Structures are given as structure tokens and as C-alpha cells.
């Protein structure tokens, strides 16, 4: 289905959140997970290469998830990276903006490993087509 060894980047400014999300990914079976505390740090990590998936929070200081998304999509090296956005509420307007900017999917906090897996399935199903 998907490669459990793929390198994933979790972006969130709150360390506990990063840890929780990391745990959920681990529950699904992923092993290679890295963290970044805001969009700017995430972007510099992504530029170093090797990442195959981004799971980012929306609301962060310095550079938020939406700006990171736009930056990634406008970067020739990174533009095809799958991007999952974590939001607190499904604010329709915001989500539509993110979709326009090229997000692959979004997930509403709080979520379980099952929900996360469903989202991943959907993303990779679409990418595989």
C-alpha cells in the first residue's frame, strides 16, 4: 500500500502535539518521523531533502501551515510532496483556501490513528491513480 519507511515531517509549535501525532503515525507503522516547530524550520529541513510526506498544523508562529504549504508548492524540488494539513475546526473557508493552494487532504483535531490512516489511504490512493 505505502512505504512504511518513508520519511515524514511533523510540523507543530507545541511539543506535546508533535509527540501525539508522531505516536499516531507510529501506531500505523511508520518509523522514520522527524519534527519541526514552525513552518520556517520545516521549510529549511525540507530543503535538505529526503522527505516524502508532510503533516503540518495550521496555526503556528513565524510561518504558519498555510504559508508553508504555499512555499512548498512553489518550490520546484518540493512541489509534489504530499501535504496533510491539521486544523482545529473544519472552517470551510480556510479549508477551501488550503485546497486551492494544493493541500492533499486535511484532518480535524482531535483524531485517532484510524482517522489518520483513512486520510493517508485517500491521499496515496489519489496519488497512485
Amino acid at each position, binding site marked *: 500500500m505505502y512505504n512504511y519507511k518513508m520519511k515524514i515531517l511533523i510540523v507543530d509549535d507545541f511539543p506535546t502535539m508533535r509527540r501525539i501525532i508522531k505516536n499516531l503515525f507510529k501506531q500505523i507503522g511508520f518509523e522514520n518521523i522527524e519534527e519541526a516547530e514552525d513552518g520556517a524550520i520545516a521549510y529549511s529541513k525540507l530543503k535538505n531533502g529526503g522527505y516524502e510526506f508532510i503533516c503540518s498544523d495550521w*496555526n503556528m508562529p513565524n510561518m504558519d501551515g498555510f504559508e508553508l504549504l504555499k512555499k512548498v508548492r512553489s518550490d520546484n524540488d518540493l512541489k509534489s510532496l504530499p501535504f496533510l494539513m491539521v486544523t482545529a475546526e473544519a472552517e470551510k473557508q480556510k479549508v477551501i483556501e488550503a*485546497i486551492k493552494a494544493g493541500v492533499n487532504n486535511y484532518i480535524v483535531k482531535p483524531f485517532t490513528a484510524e482517522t489518520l490512516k483513512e486520510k493517508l489511504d485517500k491521499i496515496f490512493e489519489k496519488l497512485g491513480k
Partner: protein
Amino acid sequence: MSDDLDEIISEFLTEAEESLDKIDPLFVEIEKKGHDKDLLNEIFRIMHTLKGAAGFLGFQQIVDVAHSAENVLKKLRDGEITFTKNLTDVILHSVDMLRLLLDHIKSKDGEQEDITYLLKDLDALLQKDSEASQISTQHSENENIESSIPDAKINETTCQINEEKEKIAPEKRECQQTLRVDVNKLDKVMDLTGEVVLVRNRLLNIVNFLELKYADDPIVQNLFETVSFLDLVTSDMQIAVMKMRMQPIKKVFGKFPRLVRDISNSLGKEVTLKVSGEDTEVDKSVIEHIGDPLVHIIRNSVDHGIEHVDVRRANGKDEKGTIEISAYQKGNQIVIEVKDDGKGIDLNKVKEKAITKGLITIEEAGRMSDNEAINLIFQPGFSTVDIATELSGRGVGMDVVKTNISKLNGYVEVSTKKGEGTCFKIIIPLTLAIIQVLMVRAGKSYYAIPLSNIEETLKISKKDMTSVAGQNIVNIRGRVLPIYELSAITGGNGADNEPQRYVVVIALGETKFCLALDELLGQEEIVIKNIDGLQTDSSYVLGATITGEGKVVLILDPAGISRYKLGLINT
């Protein structure tokens, strides 16, 4: 996840508390500055993050409070509702409630709080001028949006990057790699480092001895060089470990804007708080113990120091009082100042009060220097305001302030000017575990005296000591200071019967006295070891240490001796 759940929860609790601590000062700042989108956004984000994490961990009450508070903050940020004192109170109340809820989780007491009133209050703020369009989280809606997600297409129009933001971002963020370590583990490292220092001291002693005896032996030379290197590395290690325990004093200062706001509001006074030097780093134990004394001093400054608006106006002062809190490093000491521009301490009133309380006699009051009079406020059972207010003036406090600070090997200096204000200056050593001492001998016992408390040492002849009204005094270059036999204080065996005496002049801020002893052995860097079962606040001993020769030596606490001696004077 269950394996890590406890750990995640404890991590969440620490981080949530740290986040909440940031809100109080931010809010007070906003109250001053008025609408500030950046500040509001920051508070909003803290609530938002808290809600998100609490949701994952199933802390529903936290989610509810944070959610309602977030809604209010959002409307405030977007300018849909306006600032009121009531709004600030409700938000700050929410922060308090969140802290309480976190405490319940921490103590695992399973208690619930009644948050319905708070939620109503928060919602009432929203109702005021909004159409109550709450954010809904309907699942069906989500699915609808999701189906409209196009296949990983890149929208060209969104490719512009905000260049300005790009420039600012790297400067703003501090790429700090941090690791959370259990305090006990850190203390263990500290303790072991202490042991290494002691071993090094012994080793240095042995090598110095060997070097004298076998100066020509190349192996001894080699050993000497190796130990010298060890000496250097150990000192560096000590500093490194010490730095690991250092934290910015911001952690304590952050609570004060809210404190000053609450107290001044309840007293109907206007006070501006100025804080500086928040980044000054101090030892962890200082952070833990300096909070309460500072809170008390600040309360006193607002309550007793700063006058009411009408009084200030009548005296031609700025209607708003000012309290300045600052911290800075001075040599290997940390200085914390709390300065107000209030009415100052009335020394005559202080003396009168002390006389009526039976702390001093009228004669003593007459002889007292201004400085001695100020220090009366630190006496147990002293209070200058007759009616006890809710905030201060219960007669406990300033003496506790002094005790707490001397527990940190520090002392307090007070300077005051009638009508102009008062300044409390707290001086504490940079590190508490490793100190420089002077090794001394009194009779047959050896003691260590912290170097930071020693002003000078000298040798006098017994004739220079005179007795005035039962008090031994010594005249040092025109200064008359009280002198005490160290062996009499410690209850050790009698002093040598030599005509020449060594004298150590102890300085605790403005309080000075002399200790007479038999021998000065030299300066040493030592590690303080606590003595189990010893109440350090009620004795003249700070702890013990092991010397280079392997002897156990008591470390004297000059502040303790001063208290002990003061007790003798008063009875």
C-alpha cells in the same frame, strides 16, 4: 500509545502551564497598549494549541474552557468585539480555571470543577455584538469539502511568496534544540560533579606534596601535569553543569504584571510596572524560592508604598505610581531590585511600632541608625499598618522574606527616602552548590566561611578589643564593630591563649560584625553537602564539606550567626 501516555500527559502539563504563564503578562500588556493584533494573536494561539492537545488527551473540560475563550479572543482579534475590563477579568479567570484543571490532572484527584458559570460568562461576551455564528464541526460538511479536493494540482496563483515574511522569519526564530530532562537526573549530575570536585581537591593536595618531595622525578612531573589538566577540566565541567541548571528569571517575573494589576485594581490605585533584565539567568533553586519573597515585597510596595491617586496628586507627584523590577548579574552575584516611587518608609513610625510591639526599648530606638531602623521591618511580628488588609500587613511576611532569601545564601538591603520611595535590593550568589570559602580554625575545630560574606581579614592584638556595656567591640581604622569569639558561638572548645588574634570581618549588606579566631588556613573552592536532619534556617551552619585533606568541615552561615547574635541582643 498507552505506554507513553503518562509521559505525554506529564509533558502536556508542563508545557500547558508554561503556555498559560505567558498569557497573564501578555494580557496586562494589551490592557495597557490597547488593541494589538500581534499580542492577541499570540494569546489566541496559546488557547488554540492547548485546546488541540487537550482534545487528543481527552481532557474535555479544558477543551470546553479553551474553546470558549478562543472564540472570544478570535472576535477580539478580528475587532468584532471591544475590550472591557470585564472581558479581561473573564479571560484571566479562564486562565486561572485552566490552571486549576491542570492541577487536578496533575494530582490525579479526579475532581471536576464547575465550569458552567465561566462558560456562560465567556459566551455572554460573545453574544454582546455578534450574530452568534459559532464554528460548527459537522462531519458531513467536511466530507463535502474533501470530495472537492483536486488531484495534487498546484495552483499557480498561490505561488507568490510573501518576500517580506521570508526575510523576517529566519531572524525571528531561534533555532534552539532543547531536551527536557528530569530534574532529579540533573541534580544527580550536579551531585556527582560535586564529588569530582572534592576528589580533585584531594588529588591536588597529594600532588603538591609529591611535587615538593620528588621534584626531579619525571613521573611525578607527569602526574603533576595531568592533575593540572584535570583541575582545569573539572572547573569547566562545574561551570557547564551550573549553567544547565540556570533559567531566565523571566519565569518568575512573568507573574508580576498580573499581580500588580490585580492588587492595584482592588486597592483603587494606579500603578505602572516596569520590568527589566528578565533574561538574567539564575539557578533553578533560586527560581523556585525567590517567587514568594518577591510577591510579598511587591504587594507591600503597592499596598503600603504607592499612595492613593488623590494623595499623589496633592503631593505634586505623577498620579500613576511606578514600580520597577529589575535583575542583573554583578560579579558572581545576582541582584534583584524592587523600586517604588511611593511615600517611603517612615522610620519614626517604624521605631514607634517596634517599641509598642516590645521589639526594642525606647533607649535602643534612640541609638539606632537609620539602617538599623529599616531592618526592624524584618523582625518577626512587625507590621506598620494597624488594620490588616487582605493583601499584606498581617505581621507575617517581611521576616519570612528575609528567611527565604537567606536560605538562598542571599540578603536584602532596603533604602528609603521619605516621599520619594523605597528600594528593596536582593542579593544572592550565582550558584548555590559550589562556593569559595575561607578555611579557619577556632580552638581545635575547623570551619569554612563563605568568601562572599567576608569583607576583610586582619590580625589584632588582644588589647585592641574592649568591652562596652557587656559587648566586645573592636576598633578597625576608626570603625567600631562588635566582635564575637567564634568558638563561643559554635560551642567548641576554648580559643588559643595567644596575645594575637585573627579577625574576619563579616559583611551582610550593611550589617557588619567581626569573628575572632585562631588561624586562617586559606581559600578553597568547596561543594556544599547538606547535613541530614539539620534545620539550616535555625542554626549557624549552612552544611558541610570535605576538604582536600579529606576532613569533614562545617560551613558557617554568617546570616545565621547574625540572627543568632541578634537574638542574643534582644533577650
